[in-house]
């Protein structure tokens, strides 16, 4: 397996949707390619960081104001 082939399977590997046979091939490649190990681990970390640090959160007061405005118009039939 080449690094390009490994990269093409990166998402499936991260999402856990690879067959046992393919997983074995990917692991074999990682056993001899440090760069692909780094790419996989840092890509997983990238997702984890974005998932745990919520961007663009709505402050509670703004959320309540927008929510009230939406529901007021819905109750009037928009």
């Amino acid at each position: 397996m080449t690094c390009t082939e490994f990269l093409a399977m990166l998402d499936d590997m991260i999402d856990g949707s690879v067959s046992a046979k393919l997983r074995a091939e990917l692991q074999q490649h990682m056993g001899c390619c440090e760069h692909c190990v780094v790419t996989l681990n840092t890509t997983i970390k990238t997702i984890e960081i974005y998932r745990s640090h919520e961007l663009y959160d709505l402050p509670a007061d703004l959320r309540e104001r927008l929510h009230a405005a939406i529901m007021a118009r819905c109750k009037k039939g928009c």
Partner: protein
Amino acid sequence: MATIQPIAGELEPHPDVALVERVRGGDVSAYDELVRKYERQVFRIAQHITQNREDAEDVMQDAFLKAYEKLEQFQGNSKFYTWLVRIAVNESLMRLRKRRTGKFVSIDEDVETEEGSVPRDLADWAPDPEQNYTQAELGRILEKTIKGLPPGFRVVFELRDVQGLSTEDTAEALGLSVPAVKSRLLRARLQLRERLSRYFRRGKNRKQPAAKEPSAAKESGAEV
């Protein structure tokens, strides 16, 4: 081998189905529940596309009002949230068109870049590299980094990786094919990884104290 687990599993029947039926039967309080459930997610999608807080607030309101008005047209073939996201994305793009005085705006904008297709920064990261920054600094880094991606990548990453939608639901919500979503997700992930590497690589010292960190707002869309 490490994997990222989906945030939410498939539920049958989806609890939104009953809420939608109650709204259709005239129960406005059921719509209150749906709005409360999804308002933050819709706001984030709008913010990712418009990159403007006021526009995102308007889009959030307009999307929920439009969904309420058109609820009879919702067939139930897709999930309510998927249908709602599609409305929110269209409203966001309309808002962008207004700002750009009618210039064509599409979710496909700038997606043909080859940047990030091949990893260049191959240095490993420090363990828990985000711990080297305060929450405020980390927030600025993450925001500045994701702003550098095309909107079609940002929204795919947000829906798939942050909100945990399936590839199929993301494709339906954005009006894209499944292969297009997969392609964009891979490139979004790799571009974010590449850009974050500048901050998180092993041996990397903190860039600057928080007070001297350049404002993310001033660098909207800039290379990071």
